[in-house]
């Protein structure tokens, strides 16, 4: 299971890539493997203000609908419209083209409560 070293992870299987005050959010390889066959993705609206733990997006596999929780608080700066048309990117490239949204961090201290790659690997038994 792929767990890139340059990301932070939420216990609920989202990842965040932090560059300056901007974070890019997606779901992990483990999450996509569990969900399988993602056929619908709905990133948050531009400008939406999210608190850490809020539902930031919804993805649905053939099996079930899953809420994607925002790992941090902030304002939505960008939404990946490509995954709306091609939701399978969340399965095939969860850490790349399958990103879901970008957020301007309003409280970077929240990153401290997220897991580092080692801790996330331990959580999923990878």
């Amino acid at each position, binding site marked *: 299971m792929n767990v890139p070293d340059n990301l932070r992870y939420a216990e609920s299987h989202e990842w965040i890539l932090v560059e300056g005050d901007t974070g890019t959010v997606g779901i992990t390889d483990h999450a996509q493997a569990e969900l*399988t*066959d993602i056929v*619908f993705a*709905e990133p948050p609206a531009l400008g939406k203000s999210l608190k850490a733990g809020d539902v930031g997006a*919804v993805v*649905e596999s*053939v*099996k079930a*609908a899953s809420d994607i929780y925002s790992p941090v608080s902030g304002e939505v700066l960008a939404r990946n419209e490509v995954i709306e048309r091609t939701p399978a990117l969340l399965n095939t490239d969860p850490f790349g083209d399958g990103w879901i949204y970008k957020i301007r961090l309003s409280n970077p201290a929240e990153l401290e409560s997220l897991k580092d790659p080692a801790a996330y690997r331990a959580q999923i038994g990878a």
Partner: protein
Amino acid sequence: MVDFAGWEMPVQYSGILDEHRAVRESAGVFDVSHMGEFFVSGPAGAAWLDSLLTNNVAALESGRAHYSLMLNERGGVIDDLIVYRLGPSEFLLVVNASMIGEDAEWMKARLREGVEFENRSGDYAALAVQGSDAGKIFEKVIGGVMPSERNCVLEIGEGFLVTTGYTGEKGFEWILPAAEATDAWGRILEAGAKPCGLGARDTLRLEMCYPLNGSDLSPDHTPLEAGLGYFVDFTKPDFIGKEALAAQEAAGIPRRLCALKAMEKSPPLRPHYPVFIGGEQVGETTSGAHSPSLGCGIAMAYLPADAGKPGQEVAIEVRGKKFRACVHKKPLYQKAS
């Protein structure tokens, strides 16, 4: 693994889309051992079943099977089942897992002289092989040629095989002693069938608009409402629920189980989503899924009879947002011939 009527069952093996495609294009196998098996025999067996079930058991030939329904006095569905006629006065009934207890109790409470009833659900496993390659698998695993007609019953050792299914594809369902199931499963896989779980079973049957008891069928809806009138024989002298059905037919069937197909990109449809016509809620989905064959949301819902006509536009609400859909002729999926 999920709990299904007390059975631990996989939703999927390799993935629902992959398994669904295998059944539509080649062959898949489902472990349906959770289904219940009742044996009925005795000189009064056929007449007794005819008093409990909607389809005509007396007219069913030995070596054949048919679909039937067991109703309450109000004409509501207790269960839907397959009746196998094994001999002049020997029958096997295959019932839904979640209903084994209730069905057996209902039937035993109405037992008559000259009828033997035995619930042997624990003794049998069941494997369903479905898809255009099912005949090849039959040849390798069972031997000989699979009957080309549907609903043919064969006795195979201590087990029974019938050319039925729940997917709209060719195939067979094999009821066999539980101790033989693991070996049979292995041989079916070796013969080329892909293992399939509950997830693909649901998407396949919903594309065909085959109802699922507990979702699309319930004690509060009659088979006439569910569009299963074909399996109700009104010429029989009597069966439980007949009077209520006749009254409903005379008065006009108030609502019908309709097939719905999304007309725009939408999240996969699921059960219990509200259905609207012209801003007014007229029902809710009883089943719903993303159709792997059609690539869009599909569902079924009871709609007022005057609205339940193909082409009728409806809106289905998903998480507060409405998506356009329309009533579609059943089945939702038809194999390109």
